[in-house]
């Protein structure tokens, strides 16, 4: 075989150094010929580039690492944040505007942060949240915080992601020592220190989603402190809790106009050696500090980026057909919430009320999915959307879930369930499927569903299943229910495997009857 093959395409000008100088065969990038074992000298540029690559990839990377490691993360005011800073790691210094909330899915946490020039949502991963709970670093409203995080800037909702718990510095807001009788719902959102004797501790029944309840008594009266299993596990010497004198830092909240005291961390509860000193209670100045709220913060940064939105919220009555096509921000109490019927493509419909005026606001399921706190009847909400007119009436078309914001979750008026409309269970028939009914009765044993719970609700006339989905019924409502409780509930009549049921409506659709 002596034919001399012509050069292959692309090989016409191929360098000789690709071939062995001794035997002439192609050897590529190797330095020793695999055919005859001869040393293959490479062009200087190729040798140099190979060494340069290895050096840059190792030594260069190490130097870059040192540079990054020793670089101070810049402190930035939120008001100076620009879109080009997206993904930047910055340090901020300011105040937690809200208590950190644990998310239903994923186990992470989030809180609103303000540094006086702007406000931003801060996300904390599940692992970080656990570490923060262990170290009692979970921020509460009013706490001073300083941390480094990664910026995520978007048109309607910018956020930060905490970089590291080690970089999170927290100074608790002052919490005055108060007598139990002096704590009122007016102090909602503030933190106070209380002292007293533990009269009893009620763990939640097995398989229930209720919190622990600790009954505390001082000279002025008695109150219940609520907390979850995680916090309970953190309490030191919890075996001797009942009968012991304790000091606890709690946050004041309310549910259905009733005072609630919440323990955010088990580390906030300390068992005392004996009864607390009588003069430990708050002076007027301390009381003032206890009701500490952020003072007149500068206007938060407007992330709407120039869209024609009114700078302040309109009242419900101010939204008229004349505003058709305009983007407005409206504030009102939620009158009703109607989620789309199963199998339909209807939007969510929320009726906002302000006095006698009402406004129907609608948004799609995708918007609902991102609403951090879902609208519930009675709560004060602010929504931004485009005004549309239907049958001469204005409606608000909300496009983004981030434009639905809770202002105040205290129901302003009557409870969500109108008991006067309660119907006997036996009167509900299959013909009423899809219609809303109010029922009243005693709950049977709970049955866990995927994503919810079912109770058999019995009244004098019969029994019907009450279905409560976690995705639409607030956790407080679910936690308040239990076997043997007398409740009133409202929801649509449904049917499952031939049995009628009441599917509790979204929001505060079930309540315990005192």
């Amino acid at each position, binding site marked *: 075989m002596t034919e001399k093959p012509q050069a*292959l395409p692309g090989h016409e000008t191929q360098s000789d150094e690709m071939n062995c100088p001794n035997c002439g065969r192609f050897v590529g990038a190797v330095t020793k010929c695999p055919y005859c074992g001869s040393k293959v000298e490479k062009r200087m540029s190729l040798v140099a580039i190979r060494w340069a690559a290895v050096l840059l990839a190792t030594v260069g990377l190490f130097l870059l690492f040192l540079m990054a490691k020793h670089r101070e993360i810049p402190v930035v005011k939120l008001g100076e944040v620009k879109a080009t800073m997206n993904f930047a790691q910055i340090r901020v210094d300011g105040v937690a505007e809200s208590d950190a909330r644990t998310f239903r*899915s994923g186990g992470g946490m989030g809180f609103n942060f303000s540094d006086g020039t702007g406000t931003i949502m801060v996300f904390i991963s599940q692992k970080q949240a656990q570490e923060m709970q262990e170290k009692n670093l979970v921020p509460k409203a009013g706490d001073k915080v300083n941390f480094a995080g990664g910026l995520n800037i978007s048109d309607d909702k910018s956020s930060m992601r905490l970089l590291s718990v080690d970089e999170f510095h927290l100074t608790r807001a002052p919490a005055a020592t108060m007598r139990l009788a002096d704590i009122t719902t007016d102090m909602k959102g503030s933190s106070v220190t209380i002292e007293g004797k533990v009269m009893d501790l009620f763990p939640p029944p097995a398989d229930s989603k209720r919190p622990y309840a600790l009954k505390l008594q001082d000279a002025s009266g008695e109150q219940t402190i609520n907390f979850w299993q995680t916090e309970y596990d953190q309490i030191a010497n919890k075996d001797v809790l009942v009968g012991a004198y304790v000091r606890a830092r709690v946050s004041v909240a309310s549910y259905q106009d009733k005072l609630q005291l919440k323990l955010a961390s088990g580390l906030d509860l300390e068992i005392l050696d004996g009864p607390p000193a009588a003069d430990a209670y708050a002076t007027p100045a301390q009381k003032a500090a206890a009701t500490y709220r952020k003072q007149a913060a500068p206007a938060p940064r407007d992330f709407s980026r120039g869209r024609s939105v009114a700078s302040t919220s309109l009242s419900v009555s101010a939204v008229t057909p004349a505003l058709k096509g305009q983007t407005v921000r409206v504030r009102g109490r939620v009158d009703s919430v109607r989620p789309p019927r199963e199998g339909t493509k209807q939007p969510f419909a929320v009726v906002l009320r302000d006095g006698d005026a009402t406004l129907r606001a609608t948004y799609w399921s995708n918007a609902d999915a991102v609403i951090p706190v879902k609208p519930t009847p009675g709560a004060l909400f602010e929504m931004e959307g485009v005004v549309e007119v239907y049958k001469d009436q204005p409606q608000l078309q909300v496009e983004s879930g981030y434009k639905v914001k809770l202002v105040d979750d205290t129901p302003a008026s009557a409870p969500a369930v109108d008991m006067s409309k309660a119907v006997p269970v036996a009167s509900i028939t299959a013909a009423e499927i899809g219609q809303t009914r109010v029922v009243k009765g005693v709950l049977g044993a709970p049955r866990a569903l995927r994503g919810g719970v079912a109770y058999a609700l019995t009244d004098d006339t019969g029994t019907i299943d009450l279905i409560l989905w976690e*995705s639409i019924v607030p956790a407080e409502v679910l936690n308040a229910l239990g076997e043997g409780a007398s409740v009133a509930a409202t929801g649509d009549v449904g049917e499952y495997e031939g049995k009628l049921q009441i599917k509790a409506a979204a929001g505060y659709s079930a309540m315990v009857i005192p």
Partner: protein
Amino acid sequence: MKGFSHFMSGVAVASFGPWAIEAAQNGNPLFFVLGGACGILPDTLDFKFYRFFYEHDVYITPDPKNPDPQYVADEYARAVAMAVDEKRYIRVKLVSIRLGADFWQQYVVKIDNDKLEVQVQFGPVVNTGQVPVEGTEKRYPTVARAKLKAKVIQTYDAGMKVDIFDGPTIGLKPMENGDLDLEFLPWHREWSHSLTVGAMLGVLVGAGVWLASGWTPAWQSFVTIAACYGVHVVEDQLGHMGSNIFYPITKLRTPGLHWMHSGDGLPNFLTVWICCLLIFWNLYRGQPAMTYHFGFIHLMMVGLVVPGLVFGALRWLLNRGQKIQMAKGDDADDEWNDSKAAG
């Protein structure tokens, strides 16, 4: 089957373990990674480890500067003669011919048992994508021949092609009637493709996990590894070549069911796609609070049957009146070439 099909099968099998889904929901991807890795592991062991330690009796190494088919034919015939004369198993390595950074000289070795000869022809120069370089097809028209001392029985008629990267190994095994049985890639689908080896691997890893983390993750690891490794062996059994299913209890490959060739496009794609749907279904079942609800039949209709019918109908419309020729292949050859072509 191709590596990716095995890999996805492993992931799909892992997804049937509720512990895998639960772990994944808590940020632990290990069971799924283990599933995929064990799904492809038998081939990895063969192609990336064992073959480099496999000894050969005859190395047929054509010279890139002077590609001589007669040399190849003569060496092949010498190997056959060795097997016949010495009455032992002879392992032959056909070495590839590299011509340039992206060019390989292809050659084909074909056995003609009627004439009792081996025929070798140098084909086109191909690139690493195994596509012939234009103008090189007819550079070597000569067909070299050499007489064989015995018939060499192989399971398919096609010639053995040697081109990119590594060349294949063949085993010549003397049979009682004097013929030689040709085994393509004799180092492949031997000990590594065994259910017992998969189970043993599961026990080994499980024992390590038991020592480190206790009983529950240990048995979960064992089940995941054994099942995902096993599904590879079972899938390979659907082809022609088969596997040595219970090594070391069994010593030989059990022939496959002949349902498909391992390189066939459609069965491979269907395997991957069905695995994706099964994984999706298992994830859906493990999801605590779904807003959307659907059944298994619904998923299969939407994800498999309807798109499949539409694709089939379109293909039929586009190919009406045209004759589509499907290349005949062999399991080992398909796997060998596909693995190499994948880079």
